[in-house]
């Protein structure tokens, strides 16, 4: 506790704080504190400007006291209201409006509430609209377009417009019954990549009566209305692959596409068959474009008519060979040789070979199952003008490749 001294307000004599009366002039001080409070020295002399003790409410009045016209306070203690000084210099008297602030009006509050509400509605609207631009919504829109066979709509949702080498994406012939679009598609989950620009949607749908689940890759597309960024389906993730040995083309849902090659397609199932062909035929198969390699296999068979045509061409070919007058008919499957000069050569087919058409890795080939036999006769002349007969018989096979040229089966003898 700090000991403190005060100066007398009347004579400035220093006195101890605990003495209520000045030892020098006898000045009575009211409310003396013995210690200095933490907030600063207590000044007991504040109200004692008149030099004497001040009247306290409730205490008896001094003799001769006259009530103040404005109250029961001692004269001078209660100042006049400001109204009495309004005639003073205006600069020293603030206007009431400079002291009391204008509260907000109901209109202000309503306007602020409206702005807040509008902000909330705008935020909710933005979020709702943004929901239309999610990967899931893009996937749903893509499958919905397919289900409706709206191929223009489906193409518009792809990352790039299909080129000429993508006939299954570019052709409106996909409206053919040979294409079965996915139906009842629903997005089960969406996973957006770390960079936020790619997403994978897991989509379940039905093709015919078969339930299918596949993953759809999507990427961000450009902005719409400055704020919204849509998604598109990554092109090329679905393809039809039809393996058809010895066929260069297959017909998928009415569209000719290269055989044995993955062709970008919309997801779904496709009827695949061989195009009309004089050589081969195959039972139609169903090809699926569901992501990943799922080849459909066509098993081409040589048409019976092609066999007949090839047999006739072989017969004609052998007949031409038989007409040869040489021991080694050029381009023919049979021939013989002699150290002597043989004249009057004549060939005859004793038996025709038995052959068949086979589909091999090299194409449709003719292979011999039973050799034929040819006979050659002639004359060997001597220097003395005599001659003696020449004859021989040889067995031979027939082979070669069968192709289709200008819509006709053509057999080409082997070398």
């Amino acid at each position, binding site marked *: 506790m700090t000991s403190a001294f005060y100066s007398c307000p009347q004579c400035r004599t220093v006195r101890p704080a605990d003495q209520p009366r000045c030892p020098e002039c006898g000045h009575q001080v009211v409310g003396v504190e013995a210690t200095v*409070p933490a907030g600063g020295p207590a*000044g007991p002399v*504040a109200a004692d400007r008149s030099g004497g003790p001040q009247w306290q409410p409730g205490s008896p009045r001094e003799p001769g006291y006259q009530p103040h016209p404005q109250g029961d306070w001692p004269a001078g203690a209660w100042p006049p209201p400001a109204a009495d000084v309004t005639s003073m210099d205006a600069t020293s008297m603030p206007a*009431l409006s400079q*002291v009391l602030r204008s509260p907000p009006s109901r209109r202000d509050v309503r306007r602020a509430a409206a702005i807040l509400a509008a902000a909330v509605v705008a935020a909710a609207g933005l979020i709702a609209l943004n929901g239309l631009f999610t990967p899931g919504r893009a996937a749903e829109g893509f499958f919905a377009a397919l289900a409706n066979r709206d191929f223009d709509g489906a193409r518009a949702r792809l990352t790039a417009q299909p080129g000429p080498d993508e006939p299954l994406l570019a052709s409106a012939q996909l409206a053919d019954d040979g294409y079965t679009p996915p139906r009842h598609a629903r997005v089960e989950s969406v996973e957006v990549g770390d960079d936020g620009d790619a997403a994978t949607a897991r989509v379940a749908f039905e093709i015919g009566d078969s339930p299918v689940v596949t993953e759809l890759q999507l990427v961000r597309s450009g902005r719409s209305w400055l704020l919204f960024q849509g998604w598109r389906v990554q092109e090329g993730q679905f393809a039809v692959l039809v393996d058809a040995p010895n066929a260069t083309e297959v017909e998928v849902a009415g569209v000719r596409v290269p055989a044995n090659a993955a062709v970008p397609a919309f997801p779904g199932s496709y009827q695949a068959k061989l195009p009309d062909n004089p050589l081969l035929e195959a039972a139609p198969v169903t090809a699926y474009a569901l992501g990943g390699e799922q080849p459909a296999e066509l098993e081409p068979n040589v048409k019976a008519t092609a066999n007949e045509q090839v047999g006739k061409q072989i017969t004609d070919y052998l007949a031409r060979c038989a007409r040869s007058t040489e021991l080694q008919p050029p381009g023919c499957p049979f021939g013989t040789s002699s150290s002597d000069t043989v004249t009057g050569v004549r060939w005859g087919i004793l038996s025709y070979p038995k052959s068949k058409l086979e589909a091999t890795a090299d194409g449709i080939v003719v292979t011999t199952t039973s050799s034929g036999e040819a006979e050659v006769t002639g004359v060997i002349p001597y220097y003395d003008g005599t001659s003696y007969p020449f004859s021989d018989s040889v067995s031979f096979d027939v082979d070669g490749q069968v192709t289709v040229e200008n819509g006709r089966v053509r057999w080409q003898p082997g070398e």
Partner: protein
Amino acid sequence: MVSVGSPGEGSVAQQSVPGAATPLGRDPSPEAARRWRFRPPGYGSAAIWLVSGLFRDRRSLLIALGAAWLNLPLAVFGAGVGLVGGALGGASSGILAGLSDRGVIPNFHGLFTSPLLEVGGIVGTVVGGLVGLVAGFLAGLLGPWLALFAQPVTALALVIGQVVGAVVIGLLYVTVSVAIEGWVLRLQGARRMSRREAALLTPIVEECASRLGITSPRVLIDDSNQVSAASGARHIVVNLGLLDEFHYDPAVIGGVVSHELVHWRNADAVAHAMVRGILLPIYVLYLLINTVRVRIHNPLLVFLVLAFTWPIDITVRRIVMPVQALDVRTAEYMADQGAVLTGHRDGLRHVLSWLQGSVDGGRNGWEQTLCASHPPNELRLERLEERGRDYGLPDGDAPPRALRVEVVRTWRQTR
């Protein structure tokens, strides 16, 4: 019961009062006060009163919004890191350039000879620090939003949501603060007036309110010996120290009460609560940090806490508080003018003269100047001067001040 009279003809009560009808439908009866829960007049409804803080100090609201909801602490963190990093980088670059020029270190084919690097370590430090400060601040402020650049709707919705959320939390904070103000004040030591205190104070309060043309709030007494009074949203608290110090001088009480009445009528407490409410997320953290700094005496623990939370500390103390203090000090000047309007200019001058310096204490350092809640008393006194009256020094309104002396020798020792 002491009567203090009523305002005469042409009193300020009959001036136009913003937001209130003349004479404001004033009904000073306790029943009326209770009915209105001590809400100041002029506010169309309790809702308007509670939201009035939104219309008051927009500058502080914006700063609080940025501080608590829009990455300002992160920007401060970025600025701090950028400042240190940039300064170190600039210093090392400048020093290396200098060493290189002197041939102390190899120049690496002119690597250190660019004009920027040749300016030396000090300039390099300053330039690097400034660049780092600005770049780090911008990176911290805008970085999170730039990260959402690819998702503008999300960013926009986030901004709107945060602003709306801040306003809602601010309003809730204000509502709760106002609702429990009485309890809080009682927990802090305030109590109702005793009979004789009410007999003294109530007429003064009602008279001052009448002269301002407003109703009266509830008056509480704080037994603290600190010389001050305070105003809340629904209460005025007068410290016993103030009454004692000035010996219940009605002029002084009238001046202080008028000051506090203006605070109450202007809903200053509501406005400040709104700023605190919007600032709430980091205000709570700041209070915790401050508690650790003041109460915990373990330097290592204080260092660790500040090492992780300095951006919040700086944001609140160096950015938010100075900005809010601008409005707070303006409110103080306005409240002082309330005493002028009620005719208690001298009473308030008396108190301010006694207090000296500032209510906040000495005016030096950051918090005593930029964060001070009250203007310097001398400037307040200047604005309270009446035109045409001489206010020379020493101040005639200033009470005689106790002279502090120190006892070095007793009377007995002297003899």
